[in-house]
């Protein structure tokens, strides 16, 4: 008997018209399928590459390695204050334009122009080719024809996105859909205290998103992180979300959690009790006024967190004590990816608040370490194909949605390009 109200159909899965049968993970263990995803998904969608606070002044820039999309992009605030993006490649002989010491590593800084290290070609921040070394040696070279290749770049709520699909015209706001619209006005820009973590995960990018898109695992995998009595109680009760929502390729899960302060102080660890903080954040968050309507969709008093999955690889988590996280999953192969977990707080009002935030940050990292290795273990055994069908429960509805969306994008791409070597994926739902 469910603790929280389910939709009229009896389950979230059926409510969203998703088949309840076992699923296949063939899409997560296939090098061929990944090659299709690179073009079908990562070159055709809006990808979040950063936030405007990373570009504090005209001339600020950063690079992003988009391995899955086979490119690197420069994101820059030009001299008129506009944020632009370009492929990180010189028009002369294709050298990578912006990098230091290690070509594959991301860099950031401030500059008035981009100069290629190879032959000295110089570009303005608007992409114009301004200077060619020994220009007279070239044959009818018109600099106007050799500017940096622009990449579509738009901003949503301070988040900077790029889209490598030049044929598509969908504006970012439209792409973010109803779930994005429901977050409009949240004071992301006030949360400038940033901690960012990076991990190399030995698993397909979608399988790690799966781990964050369900909390069914939380009372079990993370059991030891709670005081024993509390942990046993949580396992007895299990996990049910307050609500799920799906809109287009995107989805979200809304959960209870982290009553601050907890009803029984003995149910939290000593360090959490004394610092008044934990996984759910400092118990006393800043006052940020009314929350946008997309948060706590069930309007439940026990609400603690909403996790949004913005397809393909950007998750936004908003916690009740008024701080948030982002997760990014950047594939590097069919069974590896780079995970980035970034935590955003309002600047600490004093040095004690800084310590409270440190506990929240370190706790997140402890949980992430548990998740990271588990997924590598999962990937290796999925690749055995000893088992090819997997039952998912109603609390795992977002996993069904993610994989079927990813397969849909690949299917549409294959149809459009009539691939001569179709990859057969035995897909349920």
């Amino acid at each position, binding site marked *: 008997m469910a603790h929280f109200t389910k939709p009229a159909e009896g389950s979230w899965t059926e409510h969203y018209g998703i088949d309840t049968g076992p699923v296949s993970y063939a899409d997560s263990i296939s090098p061929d399928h990944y090659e299709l995803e690179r073009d079908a998904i990562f070159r055709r969608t809006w990808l979040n590459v950063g936030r405007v606070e990373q570009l504090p002044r005209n001339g600020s820039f950063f690079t992003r390695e988009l391995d899955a999309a086979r490119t690197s992009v420069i994101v820059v605030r030009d001299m008129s204050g506009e944020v632009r993006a370009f492929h990180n490649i010189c028009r002369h002989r294709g050298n990578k334009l912006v990098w230091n010491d290690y070509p594959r590593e991301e860099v950031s800084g401030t500059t008035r122009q981009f100069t290629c290290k190879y032959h000295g070609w110089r570009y303005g921040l608007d992409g114009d080719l301004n200077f060619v070394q020994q220009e007279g040696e070239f044959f009818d070279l018109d600099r106007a024809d050799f500017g940096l290749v622009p990449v579509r770049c738009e901003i949503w709520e301070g988040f900077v996105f790029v889209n490598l699909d030049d044929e598509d015209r969908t504006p970012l706001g439209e792409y973010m859909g109803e779930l994005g619209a429901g977050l409009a006005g949240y004071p992301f820009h006030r949360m400038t205290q940033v901690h960012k973590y*990076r991990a190399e995960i030995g698993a397909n990018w979608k399988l790690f998103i799966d781990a964050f898109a369900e909390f069914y695992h939380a009372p079990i995998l993370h059991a030891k992180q709670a005081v024993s009595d509390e942990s046993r109680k949580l396992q007895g009760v299990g996990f049910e979300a307050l609500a799920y929502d799906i809109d287009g390729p995107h989805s979200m899960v809304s959960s209870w959690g982290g009553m601050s302060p907890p009803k029984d102080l003995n149910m939290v660890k000593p*360090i959490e009790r*004394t610092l008044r903080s934990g996984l759910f954040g400092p118990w006393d968050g800043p006052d940020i006024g009314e929350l946008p309507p997309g948060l706590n969709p069930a309007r439940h008093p026990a609400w603690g967190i909403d996790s949004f999955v913005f397809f393909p690889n950007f998750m936004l988590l908003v916690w009740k004590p008024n701080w948030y996280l982002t997760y990014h999953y950047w594939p590097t192969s069919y069974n590896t990816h780079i995970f980035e977990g970034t935590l955003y707080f309002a600047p600490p009002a*004093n040095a004690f608040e800084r*310590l409270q935030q440190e506990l929240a*940050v370190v706790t997140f990292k*402890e949980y992430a370490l*548990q998740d990271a*290795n588990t997924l590598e273990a999962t990937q290796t055994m999925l690749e055995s194909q000893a088992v090819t069908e997997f039952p998912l429960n109603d609390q795992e509805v977002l996993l069904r949605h993610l994989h079927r969306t990813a397969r849909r994008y690949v299917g549409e791409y294959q149809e459009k390009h009539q691939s001569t070597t179709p990859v057969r994926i035995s897909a349920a739902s």
Partner: protein
Amino acid sequence: MTALLPPDFADLEPYADWALPTEGARYAKRLDSTMDELQAFYDAAFPRLEAATTYLEQFGMDNLPDDGKRLLWLFGGLVTASFPVEVWRQPRVPDSGASAVEAVVEPAV
């Protein structure tokens, strides 16, 4: 030898080597410590956490003196050390194997 911590916390000077400025450094020290060492640090520092709270609350991040910064970092070390002591009973996260989750951006203090 000059004290590294504020005078009221002279009792924690033997543990001033935990006053490391980054989470990564504090985590590396945890991995490099035995459970006995982590427990000894926890037993000395945890009872002083309330006093540290009172001390730290009086400073904004822009006027924290150098010895106060070191106190903040030392208690950051306590946060990191609390996991093995309160939860894991070993320095590493169980079943984490070779995985690494590393800080690439953190606030300057």
